[in-house]
C-alpha cells in the first residue's frame, strides 16, 4: 500500500526532532578526549560539584516526596472549592523564569522579611548555602513530583479504599496497605522526574548560591572563564548522570505498562 503524504510529513518531522535533540548531545559527549574526561573526574572540585548536584537534587526529591504525597493524595481524592487554584499554584514554578525564582526566594529569606528573621534566629542561612540550594531545587522540582503522584493516585479506584475501610482498616492502614503499594511506581517516577528537574537547574541556584558550586554553575563558570573546551568534560559527566536518571524512568514506566 502506498503511504500517504501525511505519513511522510509526520516521519520527517519526527526525524528532525530526534536530530535536534540528539545531535548537540552527541557532539557534546564526543568532543572531549578520554584523557580530558579522566582528568576532570580526578579534579576534586569537579567531583565535589557533581556530588553536590546529585545529593541536593536527591534531597529536594525526598522533601517533595514527604511533604507532597499527602497533598497529591488530597488533590486526587477530594473535590473542593478552589481546587483549580491550588493546582495552578502548584504549576507556577514551571512557568516562572528561573532567575526570578531565585530572587523571590532570596527576598523572603532576607533580613527584611519575617521568614528571613525567623531563619536567621534559628541559625539557618539560605544565601550561599547547601540549605539554599536544596530550597531552590525543591521549589522547581515539586510540581513534577506532585503531578506524577496525583496521577498515580487518581488511577486507583476509590472503591478499593472504600472496601478496605469497610473491612475494618483505618484511613492510615488503608493508605499503607492498599493505596501506597498500588501507587508507589507513580511516586517513584515522580521522585525521578523531580530530581531530574532539580539536577538541571541553573538560573535560580546561581542567584541564591553561587558557592558552594553545583555542577551546572561550575560548567557555566568554566565556560565564562576558560571557554567551551574546558567546560565540556564537566558537562559530559553531568549529562551522563541525567541520562541515566531518565533511562531509569523509562524502564520503570515500561515495566509498569507490561505488568498491567
Amino acid at each position, binding site marked *: 500500500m502506498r503511504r500517504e503524504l501525511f505519513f511522510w510529513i509526520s516521519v520527517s518531522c519526527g526525524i528532525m526532532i530526534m536530530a535536534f535533540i540528539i545531535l548537540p548531545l552527541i557532539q557534546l559527549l564526543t568532543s572531549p578526549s578520554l584523557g580530558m574526561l579522566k582528568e576532570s573526574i580526578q579534579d576534586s572540585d569537579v567531583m565535589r560539584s557533581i556530588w553536590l548536584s546529585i545529593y541536593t537534587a536527591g534531597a529536594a526529591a525526598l522533601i517533595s516526596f514527604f511533604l507532597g504525597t499527602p497533598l497529591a493524595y488530597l488533590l486526587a481524592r477530594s473535590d473542593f472549592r478552589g481546587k483549580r487554584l491550588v493546582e495552578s499554584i502548584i504549576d507556577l514554578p514551571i512557568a516562572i523564569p528561573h532567575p526570578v525564582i531565585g530572587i523571590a526566594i532570596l527576598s523572603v529569606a532576607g533580613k527584611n522579611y519575617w521568614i528571613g528573621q525567623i531563619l536567621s534566629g534559628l541559625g539557618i542561612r539560605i544565601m550561599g548555602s547547601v540549605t539554599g540550594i536544596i530550597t531552590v531545587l525543591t521549589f522547581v522540582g515539586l510540581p513534577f513530583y506532585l503531578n506524577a503522584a496525583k496521577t498515580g493516585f487518581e488511577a486507583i*479506584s476509590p*472503591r*478499593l479504599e*472504600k*472496601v*478496605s*475501610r*469497610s*473491612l*475494618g*482498616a*483505618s484511613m492510615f*492502614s488503608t493508605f499503607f*496497605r*492498599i493505596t501506597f*503499594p*498500588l501507587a508507589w511506581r507513580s511516586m517513584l517516577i515522580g521522585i525521578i522526574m523531580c530530581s531530574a528537574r532539580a539536577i538541571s537547574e541553573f538560573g535560580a541556584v546561581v542567584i541564591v548560591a553561587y558557592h558552594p558550586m553545583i555542577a551546572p554553575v561550575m560548567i557555566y563558570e568554566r565556560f565564562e572563564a576558560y571557554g567551551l573546551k574546558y567546560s565540556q568534560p564537566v558537562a559530559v559527566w553531568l549529562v551522563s548522570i541525567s541520562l541515566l536518571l531518565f533511562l531509569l524512568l523509562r524502564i520503570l514506566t515500561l515495566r509498569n505498562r507490561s505488568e*498491567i
Partner: protein
Amino acid sequence: MISIQNLNINLKEFNLYDINLSVSENEFFILMGPTGAGKTVLLEAIAGLIPLIRGEIFVGGKKITRLPPEKRGVSIVYQDYALFPHLTVLENITYGLHFHRAEKTSAEKRLDRLLEILNLFELKHRFPINLSGGEKQRVALARALMVEPKVLLLDEPLSALDPNFREEVRGALKRLHQSSDTTFLMVTHDFADALSLAGRAAVMNKGRIEQVGNVREIFEKPASPFVADFVGMKNLFEASFYNTQAVVSGLKIEIGRIVDPSSHYLAIRPEDIIISTETFSSSMRNNYSGIVTRINNQGFYYEIDVRVKDTPFKGLITKGALIELGLEEGIPVYISFKASAVHVF
C-alpha cells in the same frame, strides 16, 4: 437489625430524601430501582462512606450514624468486584483479619467454609487479574464475609456477570445467606434475583423509597404507577414444575427445559404473547384459546387482558393490529408464546 430514620443526603449528582427503612436480622432484603435512583448512595451511607445531611442509622440497635466505616461491622461488595489487584485471592479474602481480633482456629474454619461454599480452593494463590468475572465476584463475597459482618451490602453483584456465572453466583449467595447470621441488603435491577433471593424489597425512585414490602406483593400490588411500570413483568404466576412442563392453576405450559425443582414462579412478558383471532400455526409450543376481558389503551400500545380458563394473561399489541384483528371485549381469541419466553424462578 438495620433501621434507617429520616435519612437525607445531598451529593452533587445524587440526593436522598427522608429515607425510612427497617430490615430484620438475617433477612435478605432487596433494593430495586432504575439507574440514578440513589440505591448505591444508600448503601454507601449505611457503610459510612458518604456524609449525611440528616437522619440516623442503627445496626443491631446501636446507633452507627457517626461511626467511621471501619467500626460499623458493615461489609460492602461492588458490582466491579474491587479486588485488591496487588494481593492474591487468599490475601484478599483474609485482608480484613488484620483489623479484627479473631481466634486463629475459628478464622481458619471460616476461611475453609467460605472457600468451600464459593468453590475457591483451586484459585487461592492466583492474582485477581487471572480470574473470570464470576470468580472475582466469589472472591469479593468471601472477603466481605470473612470478617463476619453484621450487615453485608451488595451493590448489583450479579449485573456484570454472564448469564451462566450469574446463576452460579446467585446460588452461592443463597447458600451463604442460609449458612450465616449476616443480614444481606442487595441492590439489583433483575426481578429474577429479587424473586429467587429475597423475602422483602424496596423500590426506589429519584432518591425516595416508593414502596416497601414482600417481593411478591410489590409485583402483584404495585403501590404507585412508577412501581407498576418498573416491575414490568405482568404475567406472573405461581406454578409447579414437572419435567419440561409447568402447571399454572390447571393450565399446562411447555417451558422446553428442566428447571430447578425449587422454583415456584413463572413469568411471561406481555410483549412476548401473540394474540390472534384464528388458531395460529407456528413453531410456538404454547397455544391456548381464551376470551378478551379488557382492552386498555397505553399510548403507543394496547394492553389486552385474555382469560384462559381461570388464568388471566396480558398481551401487548399495536393500534394497527387491534383494528386489523377487530378485537373487542368478550370475543374469543387465541394466544401463543414460545417456551423460551417463559421465565422461571
